[in-house]
């Protein structure tokens, strides 16, 4: 039913066209590397460079110690000296992010009388940042109290010994870079596939294709498989950048990672094909690709934690191939080979690929109607 020489002929044509297009080379090889570096280095969920204020010229040496330790920790930056302005006003006008306010008379005096209250004002516009700032200050204050004041903290009877697995230093790159990899891998497969099919419709070569006695299956396979292969060519590059530039480990097997990537690329190419059955011209194909990619990125788990979403949203994220692939990437690279988990997610991706190709097949016409 499917002629292999026919498929080979298709592959040869698509590859030649892809390779000859200078823009394609840019999109496939240069753009992903630039973007990976850009976003891998730039974005970070770490909380740092927080502008901290404490009353200048204070005789409160405890406060001074806490302030200096905070700056020394490198999480905080000193606020520019604004003598005559209230800290609240500084926060409101966006000049500082957090402020330490000691009780009247100063902390040193208050400590002498028992427990001292240290007020911490935090700009909570950014929720995660605010929580981290609170944690940092509490930490720093505790160590100042112990070291500087030599007030030994009593050892609590119940001690939580915490170990962070897979990423002991909480390096952002381990978390972010797989997310960016995921994003890059699918831009090519979704957009280029859908555009290649609609371009043939626009130029009229599609008419020539279907004037030959070929089946819908042959056309779909002939158009999609080359793009699966082309997209997969990107994978080693992106992976190499992630591992060698960002130091993200690869604790699982490379082969399994490749398999997972193959399953993902198949599913996204299938989506690109489906979009092309709706689009009448290249512009619509691109817009359609974008309409898919933007929400898909949002639901993938890179930007927002998926655990917390309401049930309905969680279901939407299950339908998102990006969320499966990101989970696979994080699992395989950071944790290792966890067979059941991996098999499940790869299975879902393959099912999606088959499902979308099937729908495309049903919509595809070998006539011009």
């Amino acid at each position, binding site marked *: 039913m499917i002629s292999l020489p026919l498929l080979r002929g298709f592959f040869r044509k698509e590859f030649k066209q892809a390779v000859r297009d200078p823009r394609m080379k840019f999109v496939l090889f240069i753009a992903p590397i630039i973007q990976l570096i850009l976003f891998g280095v730039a974005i970070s969920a770490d909380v740092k460079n927080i502008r901290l204020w404490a009353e200048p010229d204070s005789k409160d040496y405890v406060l001074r110690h806490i302030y200096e330790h905070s700056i020394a920790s490198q999480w905080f930056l000193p606020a520019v000296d604004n003598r005559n302005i209230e800290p609240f006003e500084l926060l409101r006008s966006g000049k500082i992010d957090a402020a330490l306010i000691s009780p009247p008379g100063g902390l040193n005096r208050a400590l002498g009388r028992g427990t001292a209250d240290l007020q911490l004002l935090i700009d909570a516009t950014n929720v995660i940042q605010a929580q981290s700032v609170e944690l940092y200050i509490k930490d720093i204050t505790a160590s100042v109290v112990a070291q500087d004041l030599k007030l030994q903290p009593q050892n609590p009877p119940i001690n939580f010994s915490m170990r962070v697995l*897979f990423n002991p230093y909480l390096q952002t790159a381990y978390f972010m870079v797989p997310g960016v990899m995921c994003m890059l891998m699918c831009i090519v497969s979704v957009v280029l596939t859908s555009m290649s099919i609609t371009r043939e419709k626009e130029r009229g070569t599609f008419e020539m294709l279907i004037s030959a006695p070929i089946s819908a299956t042959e056309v779909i396979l002939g158009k999609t498989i080359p793009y699966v292969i082309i997209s997969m060519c990107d994978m080693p590059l992106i992976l190499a950048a992630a591992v060698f530039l960002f130091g993200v480990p690869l604790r699982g097997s490379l082969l399994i990672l490749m398999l997972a990537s193959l399953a993902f690329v198949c599913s996204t190419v299938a989506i690109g094909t489906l979009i092309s059955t709706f689009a009448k011209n290249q*512009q619509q194909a691109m817009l359609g690709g974008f309409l898919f990619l933007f929400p898909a990125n*949002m639901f993938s788990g890179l930007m927002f934690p998926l655990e917390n979403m309401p049930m309905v949203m969680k279901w939407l994220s299950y339908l998102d191939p990006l969320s499966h692939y990101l989970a696979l990437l994080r699992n395989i690279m950071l944790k290792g080979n966890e067979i059941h988990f991996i098999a499940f997610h790869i299975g879902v991706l393959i099912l999606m690929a088959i499902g979308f190709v099937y729908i495309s097949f049903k919509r595809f016409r070998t006539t011009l109607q």
Partner: protein
Amino acid sequence: MSFVWSRAKAIAQKEIYHVIRDPFALALSIGLPIFLVIVFGFAIEFNVKNIHLAVHDADQTQASRGLIDIFGKSEYFIIDKVTSPEKAQQAIMSNNDRAALIIPGGFEKLLFTGKSSQVQLLLDGSDNSTVVPILSYLESIQKMANKQLANFNPSENIDIKTRFLFNAELNSRWFVIPGLTVAIMAILSVLLTALTVAQEWENGSMELLLSTPVQPLEVIVGKLVPYAFFCLVAVVFVYIISRTVFGIPFRGNIFVFGLGCVLFLVTCLVQGLLISILTRSQSLAYQIANMTGLLPAQLLSGFIFPVESMPKFFQYFTMLLPARWFMVIARESYLKGSTFFDLGIPFLALGTLCWFMIFFAVKKFKKDLEP
């Protein structure tokens, strides 16, 4: 060369017809913002709850059960009992649990003899979004456990009294939704103009337009006004939803915010136009719009990942992004009630970028018109 409004208006009218008759573009400009705001309004919650915690209790005493209880009764954790420490690690490995609590035998005995007793907590470090909140929960749970189970209630020498300003309940939505407005606007406006105008270059109708007495500025104004209109409708819509459905406060000055919107919108639209002028091809326009519009708006503007956390080089680099400045204006207008003077620097930056964009666009257009 004078600017004739009627010509610009004619171009604008044609553009409106284009967009209305294109289902995809229409779906994008109206459907996407609506969909996103509603979905993400309900979906976003950075304070992770219902974290699956694998628990192995080797002690099986009242104290150990009490400890497990404290974890379970907090709204943060869901307890999954496992039969061995290895199984606990396995559970984290296979993503069934995000953390594990391992209580060794002799836990209660140590407590009663007044010595220090240790329990181990394993956290899944492959997902930063859960680790950081968990660490802060653990701090308060440890305190509670010490207080309830061992009567250990040390007086804090220094008691930190935290006041969270502008978002006292740490509501993630208040952070995300204003930012979402910015991201959507940036993406919509850049993409719409880059694509639709690039199409005109590709099929030659733009050259036809430029062969008439029309002036570059008229083309720019005429082409962009309809998209500006659609985007503003989207902004108003998002504003209404954020205020009524999600109850996000708006403490600032609506005119200041409006000015920021208009400036930002114009900048993004002209950016899209510039991309289409330079590339004249839809597929390339899309790539460039993606790289310079979408991705930066999503990732580098401060939408989710704070600009302060970026390396110094990038902090300076993002100053070239209009989205970064409008993000500040939007968030602070909603949550802080900032005045125009407070937002002086962002407005200055945004205004400058806007002016530069227009300047380049007009210059490039003029150059193309020269014989």
